[in-house]
């Protein structure tokens, strides 16, 4: 307390200000206590409802991502079948009988060779992982940032993360906190902050995207690999 001074009015005002400050501190403490009580208590049905709604939304998001992944895989399989059919056509076109038949029809336009992949995706590894921003989507912007978390199922620290897009490498950032993941799966001594993010360019067209992790500073392993389709500017 600092109520020194000669003027009684001034002293009274100082004391009153100090008293008000004490009252305010005490009231703040009580308001905080109520919040802690509410946060702690299962009895707060409103908070409980909000938590349940949030969990349901997360689940719905996960289900939607899962559906998209299934569709992406089906699309990949169809693309592979189409490529196989294309190869078969090429083979037929290269045959003797086709060359004979060709003499009676106009020459078709040349087929563009598929783009070569400079650095193939790393060998697959077993990871426990999740992507907050699902890679299974139509990419409409010029770049995309993938956020998620991962750790190797066999243990070991992830020491670097990157995106491999048709052989072009994009370095990512490790060490994002994931308190909810740790709360659910327990502490991960080798990967205490298992969150990561990696941004990559999304040029128009179809690409092969691999998210790769370097384990213990040594080999790179693929966490997930998928075809992606980029259509900038489309609705």
């Amino acid at each position, binding site marked *: 307390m600092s109520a020194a001074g000669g003027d009684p009015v001034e002293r009274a005002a100082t004391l009153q200000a100090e008293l*008000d400050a004490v*009252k*305010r501190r005490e*009231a*703040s403490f*009580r*308001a905080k*206590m*109520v*919040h802690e*009580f*509410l946060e702690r*208590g299962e*009895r*707060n*049905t*409103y*908070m409980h*409802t909000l938590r349940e709604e949030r969990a349901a939304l997360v689940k719905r998001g996960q289900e939607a991502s899962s559906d998209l992944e299934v569709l992406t895989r089906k699309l990949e399989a169809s693309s592979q079948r189409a490529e196989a059919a294309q190869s078969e056509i090429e083979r037929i076109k290269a045959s003797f009988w086709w060359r004979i038949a060709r003499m009676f029809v106009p020459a078709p336009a040349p087929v563009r060779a598929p783009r070569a992949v400079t650095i193939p995706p790393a060998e697959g590894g077993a990871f426990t992982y999740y992507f907050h921003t699902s890679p299974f989507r139509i990419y409409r912007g010029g770049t995309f940032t993938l956020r998620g978390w991962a750790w190797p199922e066999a243990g070991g620290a992830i020491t670097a993360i990157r995106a491999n897009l048709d052989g072009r490498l994009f370095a990512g950032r490790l060490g994002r906190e994931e308190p909810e993941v740790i709360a659910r799966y327990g502490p991960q001594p080798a990967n205490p902050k298992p969150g990561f993010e990696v941004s990559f360019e999304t040029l128009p067209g179809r690409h092969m995207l691999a998210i790769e992790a370097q384990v213990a500073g040594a080999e790179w392993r693929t966490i997930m690999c998928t075809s992606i389709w980029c259509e900038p500017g489309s609705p």
Partner: protein
Amino acid sequence: MSLEEAHARWQESTSALGERSAYKRVWDRQAGEFDVASLAVGGFMGEETLDQRAQGTIATLRKTIGLHGEDVVLEIGCGIARVGKPLSRLCLHWFGADISGGMLGHAAKRLKDCPNTTLVELATVGLQEFPGDAFDVVYCTVVFMHLFEWDRYRYVEEAMRVLRPGGRAYFDNFPLDSEHGWQVFSQGAMYPLANRPAHLSMSSSREELLAYMTRAGFAEVVIHDLPNGLIAATGRKPDE
């Protein structure tokens, strides 16, 4: 939504009188749309009108129990936060409790720019979600008319528990002996017997409110006749 349309929707959303005790269901049904919810809790619509009426309630609270900048305040039956929104600017923290999650959904939207507010959905009649000795002020306005007497008393009892020693309480309802009160009573009486809704407003007497307050242990109990035709009971939780 026009006033007529809101009235029609409100009528559709009401529950039968036999359901009166199922407060959560009764009030959640009326909370589907903001205009209907607003009409159900206040009998009027529009932010400006809501704010104007809230200022009247705040003036009453100031006059009867006082409001201070360092008060931690709890409103029982806050609905869409008609009073809470402007009152939060006058206190340290405002807590709004209501049994209807639907109403609180509307309240949350109205309070998005009021950081010192917290909404709590009550599981049932009572304030079991809150700790004891926590609040400087507990008030409950334009709620008792929708509750049975036992539940009114339950909230008075609970207010006593959650108030800090020296904390102030306020409860109001309409009496039969004011012009406004008689008007509300008469409107209720016009409902056909089979169509009485669950939220139908029911009066309190001065003696009833006085009995609740004294039985619950409040000190300095005063019954006020308010200019708007309501009566209010105020009291203070005795110091330890």
